């Protein structure tokens, strides 16, 4: 057998046995169940939701086609515009502040700090806890009657006011504060990992050339963190759009409907108001917004091909 093979090898590619051909397909077979699951349970459901947005579904899915009616109605609802406006404010503040704090803390922690092992879990743990757990604590903090406002007044500054959460214009900023608390530690971990991956030789070379710390960070280190910036942006953007537990626990959409966000809007119309058609339409819009942010990133990450690793 082996002699035959050796001779064939010298002349032409060896004949593939069935087993070997199966071996070729094995990777695809291994990947297939996961891919199939994703196709059905994610993309299939997205198509289903898209279809529902063109029907008159109310309490349960119905399949009576009504064309663009749901979308027309969606864009005529004041709540939807409030939700979109809030999303713009919330997402931009949340992403910018989390990135700034995350980067800042990572840079500080990277300075050979004693006690890093203690500080790091302190910064990271908020991500571990669901908002059903911390929601009440945050509601207390932000409530003027029992929270920060009262405590600062007890300490002596009797004119201090912090009643944002009761103010229709300012309540969304309270949501930002709580959301930043929850995620900035994770962003810090991402940047810290990125910083630790930077070769110290580069830094030493720059120092020999006389660079100040400020210039060092600005010109060399931060630009090298570009991949971490991208990842942080994607993770934060996705959390911002999906934000549901946080808003419900903190304000329940209030005062009035002042902190309505697309995620709470979609839930409310689908499940509470028995208007599944409109809920599906809002979900489609939400998905389009997510796709517009994520697809470019994925293309940059994956479509660009190997980067010589």
């Amino acid at each position, binding site marked *: 057998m082996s002699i035959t093979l050796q001779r064939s090898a010298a002349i032409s590619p060896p004949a593939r046995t069935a087993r070997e051909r199966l071996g070729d397909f094995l990777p695809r077979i291994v990947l297939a169940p996961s891919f199939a699951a994703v196709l059905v349970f994610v993309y299939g459901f997205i198509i289903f939701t898209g279809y529902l947005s063109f029907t008159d579904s109310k309490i349960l899915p119905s399949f009576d086609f009504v064309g663009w009616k749901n979308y027309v109605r969606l864009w005529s609802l004041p709540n939807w515009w409030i939700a979109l406006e809030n999303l713009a404010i919330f997402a931009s503040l949340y992403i910018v502040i989390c990135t700034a704090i995350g980067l800042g803390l990572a840079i500080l922690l990277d300075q050979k700090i004693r006690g890093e092992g203690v500080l*790091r879990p302190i910064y990271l743990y908020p991500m571990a806890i669901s908002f059903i757990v911390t929601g009440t604590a945050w509601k207390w903090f932000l409530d003027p009657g029992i929270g920060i406002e009262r405590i600062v007044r007890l300490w002596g500054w009797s004119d201090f006011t912090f009643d944002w959460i009761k103010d229709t214009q300012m309540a969304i900023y309270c949501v930002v504060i709580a959301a930043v608390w929850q995620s900035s530690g994770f962003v810090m971990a991402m940047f810290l990992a990125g910083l630790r991956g930077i070769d110290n030789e580069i830094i030493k070379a720059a120092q020999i050339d006389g660079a100040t710390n400020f210039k060092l960070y600005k010109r060399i280190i931060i630009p090298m963190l570009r991949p971490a910036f991208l990842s942080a942006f994607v993770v934060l953007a996705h959390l911002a759009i999906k934000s549901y537990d946080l808003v419900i626990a903190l304000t329940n959409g209030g005062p009035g409907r002042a902190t309505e966000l697309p995620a709470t809007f979609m839930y409310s119309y689908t499940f509470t108001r028995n208007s599944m058609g409109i809920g599906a339409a809002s979900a489609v819009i939400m998905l389009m917004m997510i796709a517009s942010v994520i697809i470019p990133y994925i293309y940059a990450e994956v479509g660009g091909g190997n980067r010589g690793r």
Partner: protein
Amino acid sequence: MAADIAGTAVRTSRVTRAIIYAALLFFAFYYMLPLYVMVVNSVKPLEEIRGGNMLALPQQFTIAPWLSAWSTAQIGVQPTGLQPYFLNSILIVVPAVAVSTILGALNGYVLTKWRFPGANIVFGMMLLACFIPFQIVLIPMARILGLLGLAGTIYGLILVHVVYGLGFTTLFFRNYYEAFPTELVKAAQIDGARFFQIFRRILLPSSGPIIVVTVIWQFTNVWNDFLFGASFAGFDSMPITVALNNLVNSSTGVKEYNVHFAGALMAALPTLIVYIVSGRYFVRGLMAGAVKG
């Protein structure tokens, strides 16, 4: 390697260092505050909470709220506390995390070491799937679980969590294995090793950090999930988040804040422990490519 040095080569003066420590401590304070409030108020009697300052240390220390949250608090019709639901959560989380991690590892392996045409598109699609909001999934998934006969069972919940964890676990392992030297794999292939052997003997042993990251991420997400747990569980498979929600969000009755906080801390304990114990690996794992660009 830079990985071994805990810290940068940047040099800082003493004044700067003092400022750095001050800033770090300030932020530590900001992050710890809610946890502090919860812990401190979970051991106060109810009158003290009503009358007093939420930041003050307890004047009267009591563990009654913790005992109540564990075994006598009203969750449904009967005062059972959170205890019976812990087991349900564990039965859901452990298999879900194990299966999704293994699948993620295999997927990452395939996508990086056994490239085939369209591999990138497959990965891109799986990555995009991470971002689907769960409310969209609820009704169609319910229908499918019903068809499969898994509705209301722990197996149904495990299936759901595995499916929606696949995107992230594949992402983490794929990025990690991308950085893994392909020469080692090629060398093993020449030596005659097959698909699974290469995986088991070459990649798996050095996958420690990324396994830890994946497990932490999945554990957190599955343990903290409420929506799927409430909608797809039956009366005998309710996870602890649903029970906690019943404890904390009751529409009527006296709000026993101390019991709520004790219960919330109890429910969060497993994830907190997992995070703290493996925190160091978390950063190391991230460094090794989980979220590198």
